[in-house]
Each structure stands twice: as structure tokens, then as C-alpha cells.
């Protein structure tokens, strides 16, 4: 089924495949940056919790 005419996209392959590739890049970036943001927030919260636990004065 995956014959060459499918990849050629009727001559528009130069535009169709980069279009879908960029879409995957944007979706992947969204997921990755969201996860990284959450992990960073959890780290910061954990550090704040330890600081509070250790009685280091929050002013």
C-alpha cells in the first residue's frame, strides 16, 4: 500500500510532508516543555518544603 505515489503526494510532497513534520515538532515540544515545567515546579516546591521543615526562617 505504501507505494511511491503515496509519498509523492501528487507532486506536492515538498509541502505536505514538512507541514506534517512541523506539526509533530510543535506537538512534541508542547508535551516536553509541559512535563519539564511540571518537574521544575515540583522541585522548587520540594526545596521550599525542606527549607520550611528545617525551620530556616521564611521572613
Amino acid at each position, binding site marked *: *500500500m505504501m507505494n511511491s505515489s*503515496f509519498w509523492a*503526494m*501528487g*507532486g*506536492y510532497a515538498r*509541502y*505536505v510532508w*514538512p*507541514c*506534517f513534520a*512541523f*506539526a509533530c515538532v*510543535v*506537538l512534541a*515540544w*508542547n*508535551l516536553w*516543555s*509541559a*512535563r519539564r*515545567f*511540571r518537574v*521544575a*515546579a*515540583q522541585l*522548587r*516546591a*520540594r526545596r*521550599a*518544603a525542606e527549607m*520550611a*521543615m528545617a525551620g530556616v526562617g*521564611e521572613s
Partner: protein
Amino acid sequence: MWTWFYKLASPPYVYGVAAVLAPWLLGAAALAMGYGLIAGLAIAPPDYQQGQAFRMIYVHVPSALLSLTVYTVMAAASAVALIWRIKVGHAVSAASAPIGASFTILALVTGSLWGRPMWGTYWAWDPRLTSELILLFLYVGVMSLRLAFEEPSRGDRAAALLAIVGVVNVPIVHFSVVWWNSLHQGATIVKLGAPSMPGSMLWPLLSMWLGFMLFFAAVLCIRLQGEVLNRERQSTWVREAVKS
């Protein structure tokens, strides 16, 4: 019904719900987009006018729709936060801004790629793409205003107001760009529009759109957890939630 809505205002509840929902939404998004991609690329017949190039609408149209929907969600969350002083609203608004901006960029790039075969250039000031570009400026405005303040709570409220002012202006901008385009361009150049579509073409588009919506909801849930944690770092429930 009100208890459900009231519970949504409490950060620990929202944090819990977001953590539970995220994987399910992601799975559903993958399913919807999977079907949409396969059907859109392989099964749907080529358009009689644009040939295979029309398949790009399966990415351009959903992302363009999403860029507007996400801005509206951001403005609504900001309005809720500003009027009823629910801090979670600011977290939702801050979380959805970068997602909306990324969809707007995606819509711009796919739009210019899709327009290239028709216009011969990658940018021909098509009314829809121009409105999309201005929408991107609005997104950047809201995000940079939020970061410009040292105090997060003040930055939230300022960005919330700008989001509301922006959402009021989106239809005005779109209408005036369409008027401007008809004034100078006339109808000579074919505008970027989805062709009228039979079922076999339409279903993949609807499922891609659904996939993008679910994907937005999933990423929003993930980002929202980070935003809620950042804003509630001092409260006690955060210490329990983070310790485990």
C-alpha cells in the same frame, strides 16, 4: 451543581484532577489524531482543484481553530480569576498561553506551506493568515506582560486584563483585516479556504480537530499542575503533595 464548581476553585482539588485526567486525555488525543492522520493522508480522495495539497488542511485548520479556542479559554479563565478572585483561573490562563501561541505558530507555518502552491510565495497577506499573525502578537503581549512583573500575583492580574481586552479585539481585528483585504486585493487571488467536502474528507478533519482539542486539554492539565504548584508553594497541601 454548585459544589462541583466551587470545588474547582480550590487548588489542591484542581491539582489532583489535572494529575488524574492528563494521561487519559493524552490517550484519547492520540487515538483521535491517529485515525485522523491515517484517514486524512491515505483514505480521503484528493481534492479535484488542489489535488493532494489539500491534505494540509488536516493540520492547518485544526491548529487555526485551536489558536482561537485557546485564546478564548485563556481570556475566560482570566475573567473568572479577575472578577471572582479565584487564583486557579490565573494558573489556567498562564498555562494555556504558551500552548495557544505554539498552535498559532503551527497555523501560520502550515498556512504558508499550504498557500505556497496556490500563490507562488509563502506569504501573500491572506486575510485569515494576517489575523492569525496579529493573534500571535496578542499572545506574545500577554505572555511578556505576565513575566514583566516581579510579583507573580500582580503579573497575573495585569496579563488577565490584557487577555480580556485582547479577546474583545480579536473579532474587530479579523473583520477589519477582511475589509482591508477586500479593499486592496479584490477577489482575484483565491483565498485560503477549506474546500466544500464530502463525508470521507470531512470525518478525518473532525477527528483531527477533536484530537487537537484533547491534546490541548492534556497539555493544559500537565502545565496547570506546574502553575498551581508555583503559586501555592507556601501552602501546607503542597508539602504533602510534593513529599510523596
